[in-house]
């Protein structure tokens, strides 16, 4: 076992979006976990992910916990990355009237996402941009 959480954040600090890939079945876990949820394999390797994502659900966050107050209000994405894992995060370039945003969501205009790395106080974190 290695310090997976720290390594993930260290990679993000270097500007790299990394996941753990199961050598047995090929499933990629982003964010990373040490035991494969698909096949229970434990032989994993770090791989760079594409950063492509697909939006499943969207939410408007107006009153988050104090740690995220500085970003509020923000839209939040429940999404899949192209490699298959669920990864949820803030949407950085969706804003405006909720009814308009819902119309865009309905029309599929928010479907395509791209992860980018946001510098925060003491750590870096992947956030989604609609593309």
């Amino acid at each position, binding site marked *: 076992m290695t310090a997976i959480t720290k390594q993930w954040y260290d990679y993000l600090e270097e500007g790299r979006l990394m996941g753990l890939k199961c050598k047995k079945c090929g499933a990629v876990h982003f964010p990373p976990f040490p035991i494969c949820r698909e096949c229970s394999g434990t032989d994993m390797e770090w791989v760079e992910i594409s950063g492509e994502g697909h939006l499943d659900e969207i*939410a408007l*966050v107006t009153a988050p916990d104090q*740690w995220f107050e500085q970003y509020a209000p923000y839209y939040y994405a429940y999404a899949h990355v192209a490699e298959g894992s669920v990864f949820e995060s803030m949407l950085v370039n969706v804003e405006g009237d909720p009814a308009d945003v819902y119309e865009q969501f*309905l029309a599929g205009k928010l479907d395509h996402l791209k992860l980018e790395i946001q510098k925060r106080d003491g750590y870096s974190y992947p956030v989604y941009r609609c593309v």
Partner: protein
Amino acid sequence: MNNTAKRWTLSRGVSIVGVGYTPFGLIGKSPEIKDFTERELVSMAFMEALQDARLEAKDVDAFFVAQYMAETLSSSNSVAGLYADWMGLRLKPGFHMEGACCSSTLTLRNAVQMVASSTADIALSCAVETTSSSPVPGKPAHIREQMPTDVLWEKTMYGCDHGYLYWAGTPTSFDGCALNYAKRHGLTLEQLDDVLNMSAYNNRRAGVLNPKAVMATKTFEEEAAEHGMKSGMDFLRSDFNPKFSVSARFLHCAATCDGASAIIVMADDLVKKYGLEDRAVKVAGFGTAAATSASQPEQYESAIKQAYAMAGITVPRHELDYFSPHDCLIARQFTQSEAAGFFDPGEAWKYILEGRTAFDGDRIFHTSGGRSSMGHAWAASAGAEVAEAVIQMRGEAGARQANHPINSAMIMNEGAGPNVNVTILKKA
């Protein structure tokens, strides 16, 4: 994901023979529970369940107590011992469990398993939560102070993944499932608003008839009349019920409160000996799925499959008479009931709009008032909803009794995201 459910069976059949829950209200305000501590609340629920089961505390072999935030809201951990003395269960096997807002169906499951494994004949699952205030360090338990809502929610978010910071989105997972549902079924934002408002409306109609829902004092029709509006739905669409996200309004949310619940389970082979045939409702199946907060649809599917395999349910649309959604976010009424197959996909919202999921409808949800009208005492709510289902199945719900027989019921619970529980009850 491996989502194939093995078919588990209890090695000894188990029934619920006694249920109780306290008035759900505010210990700083509601006369029924004014100045109560967690101790009085959990004891009150237990005594009601004992009376319901015509048993005494000494008959109970072991107990499980659920409390989500014992440390934050009671300045205590390891609370099983603490409550043992209060409940007359001193020196009996007692266990504290926590699975956020589905804690009390986790404890129910464990109480059932204990009896099924013949390490107890009669076991108690009880739960308590006091969310409206917090203890004052160094002072006795009845002295409490107001807890700011933002601090409360911050502590609640401890149920979410801290390693990968998923809790940035949790406060308004209100929107996520609702908007996704609306998109899939072609609802406009206005239609979605009507469905969410009607869910709250249906809940309140039951709540005002439930003597335990002490915070639900007025129907929305009465609220509307007081403000010079024509209808309850007008009131729910008005500025008295403001939106705080794309779809969610204030009265769509759980009303956090204080309360306790208790359920006594007994081995089936003892029900006749104790003469409790009129009390008994069988625990037919359960399912539990743990995962990080981002895994909801898969969790639903897994927990439901486990429970249906165990209970032998193949066509839920025809085999379930009552569905208790975990409606801390009221959109869960349609997302969960469809995930469970209580309705076909795209059907639930129509039933809700037509009032058919209300207590006097033909495909009913819980009849307690739900989390928006009875209130939400986190760990205690799931157990209270199990109790409510049992009361309905026995035909003892009085003014809010369903107008058709309830022979089977499903109670679905979510705990902060990482936990999903399903409990299936059938008439003995």
